[in-house]
């Protein structure tokens, strides 16, 4: 009973247009930033390396390399501050947490196949 009540409460915080993407996708995350009373959109692009949590507490982690340094940012999936998530590229991955990317540098991070080709093959 308690879990049902909590789920009902969380429902009000869920967004209807949940961004669709998968682990290993390269995405652009558009976040709304308030500067004074002006709102602008900030972009963060990188690879989705993890999703965690459930309900209104669901998060996803995006990793990118900035000036040779790995940067990870964790976003609440249902946050109203996330304007949209654009999928730029899909990667083929075999696990749900890509933490092994943290140990990689240079080309080994980027070298990943695109999903589109495999899907085309499957359809054909």
């Amino acid at each position, binding site marked *: 009973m*308690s*879990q049902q*009540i*909590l789920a*009902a*409460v*969380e429902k*009000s*915080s869920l967004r209807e247009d949940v961004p669709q993407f998968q682990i290993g996708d390269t995405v652009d995350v558009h976040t*709304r930033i*308030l500067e004074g009373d002006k709102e602008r959109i900030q972009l963060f692009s990188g690879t989705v390396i993890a999703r965690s949590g459930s*309900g*209104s*507490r669901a998060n996803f982690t995006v990793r990118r390399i900035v000036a040779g340094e790995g940067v990870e940012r964790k976003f*609440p999936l*249902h*946050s*109203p*501050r996330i304007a949209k998530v654009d999928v730029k590229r899909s990667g083929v991955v075999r696990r749900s947490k890509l933490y092994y990317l943290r140990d990689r540098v240079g080309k080994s991070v980027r070298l990943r196949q695109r999903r589109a080709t495999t899907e085309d093959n499957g359809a054909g």
Partner: protein
Amino acid sequence: MARRGILGRKVGMTQVFDAAGKALPVTVIEAGPCHVLLVRTMERDGYAAVQLGFKDKPRRLASRAERGQVANLGSARGKKRQEAGVVVAKAECEPKRFVRELRGEFPGTEVGATWTVQSLEGVKAVDVVGITKGRGFSGVIKRHGFGGQRATHGVKKVHRHMGGTGSLAAWRGGGRPKKGKRMPGHYGCDQVTSRNLDVVRIDAESNLILVRGAVPGPPGGYVVIHETNKVG
């Protein structure tokens, strides 16, 4: 006017987003509806209060006293008192699991009335009284936040122990520890008040109140919700 309040049951914690898109940690409390079981007055009881009952208790679990508290049972003594002209107002409802009194005068409140969470409408912040989770017999690190002792450098088997309990100087050389020395012992199961918790949302339809932050006790624990008495 007394502080407004209601009884409730902690449902659990979760997270909601506010208007600005900020994630708030909230405790969901199922509050009310409560029956007014008794109104205490200065003249009769020496203090003013309202006695509230929350959640029905099955009659097979309730004692005769508990059933008599909420309804007229037609006992021999009750009949005699009625004949003598003593009228005791009863709520005429099911026995209650959780009964507490809210001190102060609540004008216009009558026995048998129902209070819902709507009575807290417009309240900015609340105090929540609950019984904390029982932790049994606990050591000083968990119970009092002591630092423990070192992992190495000759410390043997006492890594989570307290240090000394006294010295010659303690108690003026009395040869015993000072009174109130913090030691291991029973921890938890205490009544604790979480004060000045912001009210995030009141859902009258499903009798829920969302307060920001944590509330004492386990999910399912009963709590008393008061309008806060914190100033400013």
